């Protein structure tokens, strides 16, 4: 509390585009650390769950107790930010097909809901509480948030669908802010580390 110590952001690095998140944090000038083991949680103040393949990530999460460590971290009211696959991992319910998840956030997420890679797209979305300008959103074989719980706030929409949602210290995006040059969403997440 109130310490001036620089906050360190952990990035789950079992598979996926964790290096793009690291590059984004480098541009902003925030220290980060890759998380592959339970011991890597030592000394991190927030966690990013990157894009990638959830079926692959889940192998590592469930077999090596990483899932329990992430849940404990979130239960400790530490900020967690998931993009695309990361958002799927955070959901309470996963559809198409049902699969294991961390269940951190009260949302239902449908995997590959826009279709296959040829249905991937770049959109301009609105996040009125985060930015006055439209935000470039890269959707890659993206999921769709089909239900949001009472505790969940929709911060951003694209094509009428919720794409950026928040529940306390938890933030989930179905798109990939780490694949653009726009730091807005990451900066918004980093604000959550200020008072913890």
């Amino acid at each position: 509390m109130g310490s001036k110590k620089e906050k360190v952001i952990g990035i789950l690095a079992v598979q996926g585009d964790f290096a793009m998140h690291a590059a984004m944090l480098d541009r902003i000038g925030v220290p980060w650390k890759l998380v592959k083991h339970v011991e890597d949680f030592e000394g991190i103040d927030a966690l990013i769950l990157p894009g990638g393949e959830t079926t692959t990530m889940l192998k590592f999460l469930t077999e090596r107790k990483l899932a329990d460590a992430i849940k404990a971290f979130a239960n400790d009211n530490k900020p967690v930010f998931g993009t695309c696959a990361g958002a799927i991992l955070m959901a309470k319910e996963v559809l198409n097909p049902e699969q294991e998840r961390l269940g951190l956030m009260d949302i239902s997420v449908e995997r590959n809901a826009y279709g296959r890679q040829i249905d991937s797209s770049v959109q301009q979305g609105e996040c009125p509480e985060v930015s006055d300008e439209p935000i470039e959103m890269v959707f890659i074989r993206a999921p769709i948030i089909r239900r949001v719980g009472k505790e969940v706030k929709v911060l951003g929409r694209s094509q009428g669908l919720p794409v950026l949602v928040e529940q306390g210290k938890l933030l989930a995006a179905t798109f990939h802010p780490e694949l653009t040059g726009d730091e807005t969403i990451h900066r918004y997440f980093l604000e959550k580390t200020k008072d913890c």
Partner: protein
Amino acid sequence: MWEYDQQMKLKIGLAEMLKGGVIMDVTNAEQAKIAEDAGACSVMALERVPADIRKEGGVARMASIRVIKEIMKAVTIPVMAKARIGHFAEAQVLENVGVDYIDESEVLTPADEEHHIHKWPYKAPFVCGARNLGEALRRIGEGAAMIRTKGEAGSGNIVEAVRHMRAITSEMRLLTTLREEELMAKAKELGAPFDLVKWVSQNGKLPVPNFSAGGIATPADASLVMQLGAEAVFVGSGIFKSSDPAKRAKAIVRATTHYNEPAIVAECSEELGEAMRGLDVAKMDPKEMLQTRGW
């Protein structure tokens, strides 16, 4: 300077999502399911694995569309499929079917001995093989969104994958030391587009992800190419030509994530059963090499 459009951003974006993972060759839906359950981040649909293509000979073509569709139905991870070099009609068919990545591959019998596919107009992204920086940059110039070093497919021998990864990374390092006026002569020597040569000289890496393929058969092989600079690995015959495919697939997935932790690679290597029987590439007739296909 090299620039690209939004479509290319999506193509490269999917390759970014596959990083740190293993893409496995499969010939039917059942193998695809085994691969997904073992933690593969993607599967590559083909008619026969390279070791069988090598053994059986004949013309190797794009896989059966029925089988590709069955594979796409069986798994939720991205599905890739191979088209013959220069065979843009096969590529059009694969795109139409909804394949997530098209591999314009030297493993299949080339359809054109001078030209590769013009890859820019497609919505589906392409991956292409390369043995050196010039070849990699020519493919990127044609619109490839991912490069994989070729290695020698179906050999179970890592030596060519190592040679190609080292060639590309050391040529890139060299480029970063050149003066501006030396770049055009270098572009001429490499047979590569000048804009891309300039991009690499300033960034020290390829503008698209760089994966490794061709000969990876063990967890330590995966660790080796990852330490040499690969950002993900393709495993072809190495899994389904081994004695216990599911176990080996899982071990290679884990070794790829923890490639720089020898204790874990050791754990992955234990009690794996027999690896595929490999070939001595040095004793191979150059005419039998798959890697020399591509121009």
